[in-house]
């Protein structure tokens, strides 16, 4: 009798387990099918240096360079109330310009439902313009002519980029890794992080974020970093050759590099702490300014 009950219980368990498994498989398949249904992928023939613009609201945008004269785009939207418009100029033949724009079919859609994620492969020499106010942008291994990336709250990461780079995020962090060409990075509350740049002209500014520069300075290069209340930190090798102009009104100045000091004192008209000096032969020019943040120059 007890054996029968035990077998009955086992059977019920197996049936329940089987039903659960079937339900799980169905839900998983449904989710995958739904995700696939919102995903699109296209390839456009393009001239060698086309202009690509992406206007999005929120979501991730990933751009990579490749050596084909084609633009490959894959995008997915979170909700059926969001769609991606594609405008190709000219409509036939290799594209000079391609504009991707996310727009809401229902203006009441909000939050994550507005999300569209993009992945693009673009030709070398592309002129790139991205606006993604609430989303992040990542650019990787791309030899571009000109790239402009703007966000309001999203993080921006650019690595191995060649060309003129302009990045701005009001509240997001900006990371620029191994960039060459002219670099301009601006934020208000976000941090700026420059790693091993081989650029000869770099501008970076934030109000309350932190600025960290890790790398060497190019001969004849011009580097200008400005902060208001955040700290500025320079980590460079002992072989770095640069002329330093560092000023802060209320912050501290900490220098660990051996310098030939040209002038170090509070100026007669200001209480600013300043340091004007040369390291080695002073081939690059480094201008650092902060109002109340600390400026540190350290050897790597």
């Amino acid at each position: 009798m007890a054996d029968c009950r035990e077998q009955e219980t086992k059977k019920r368990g197996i049936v329940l387990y089987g039903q659960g498994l079937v339900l799980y498989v169905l839900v998983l398949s449904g989710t995958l099918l739904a995700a696939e249904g919102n995903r699109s992928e296209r390839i456009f023939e393009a001239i060698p240096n086309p202009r690509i613009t992406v206007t999005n609201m929120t979501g991730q945008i990933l751009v990579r360079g490749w050596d084909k004269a084609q633009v490959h785009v894959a995008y997915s939207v979170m909700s059926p109330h969001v769609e991606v418009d594609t405008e190709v100029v000219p409509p036939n033949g290799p594209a000079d310009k391609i504009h991707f724009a996310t727009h809401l079919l229902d203006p009441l859609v909000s939050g994550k439902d507005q999300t569209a994620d993009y992945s693009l492969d673009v030709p070398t020499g592309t002129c790139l313009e991205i606006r993604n106010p609430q989303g992040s942008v990542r650019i990787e291994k791309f030899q571009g002519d000109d790239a402009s990336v703007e966000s309001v709250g999203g993080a921006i990461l650019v690595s191995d980029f060649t060309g003129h780079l302009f990045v701005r995020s009001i509240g997001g962090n900006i990371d620029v890794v191994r960039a060459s060409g002219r670099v301009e990075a601006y934020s208000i509350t976000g941090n700026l992080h420059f790693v091993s740049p081989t650029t000869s002209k770099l501008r970076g500014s934030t109000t309350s974020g932190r600025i960290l520069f890790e790398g060497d300075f190019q001969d004849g290069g011009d580097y200008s970093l400005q902060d208001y209340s955040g700290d500025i930190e320079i980590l460079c090798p002992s072989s770095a050759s640069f002329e330093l102009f560092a000023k802060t009104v209320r912050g501290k100045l900490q220098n660990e590099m051996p310098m030939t000091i040209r002038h170090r004192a509070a100026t007669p008209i200001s209480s600013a702490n300043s340091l004007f000096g040369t390291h080695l032969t002073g081939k690059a020019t480094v201008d650092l300014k902060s109002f109340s943040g600390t400026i540190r120059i350290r050897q790597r």
Partner: protein
Amino acid sequence: MEGEEGTFVPAHAAECAFCRAIVADLEALRAAAVELPLEEPSPAVWSQIRAQLVAAGAFTEKTSLWDWFRQLDLLRRPVPVATFACMVILGSLLTAPRNYPEQETTSAVTALPARTAVQSMAFVGDSAALEQVVRQLEEAFRAREGSLAPDLKATYENSLVSLDASIRECSDSLRREPGNSLAHEYLLGAYSQKVEVLSSALEFDAGR
């Protein structure tokens, strides 16, 4: 026919009675038209033609400067127009050349800061107008911030708090040390950034 060689029509008309009659009619009409006196069409005809051309968009009616200004329909887009106006005013305030009294300088090192010191003091004199420009933009932002997504609104708010703090501190520094060139530079920068942030928020809101 016009543009064609003239030999075909007379040759064909000589052989074809129907076409010969048509050509004779056309010749008679042309001869009669030459004899007609030149009559000026009535003003009603001209006004009808003009009205049809205007309706077809062939040309626009001459308008006064005020009419042209009204055609821009600015009142329907007050925020971008106000933002643009504020940017123009701010740009003028920041870049307009002023006459500064030259100061005697003793060395190259002190020459530039001395001039900047006077500029700083001149700037303090303009700050009321500048503050008003920024206040107008801020009012427009406050009126519309409710339509922004919460995280976006928080980002804008944080950046404005940060910029306001820097404006306050720089203004205090300048009050204590009117010659502080770096404080002056930061104050200008903070105002410019605040205008940019507010414009970005208003532009984003308008673009939705």
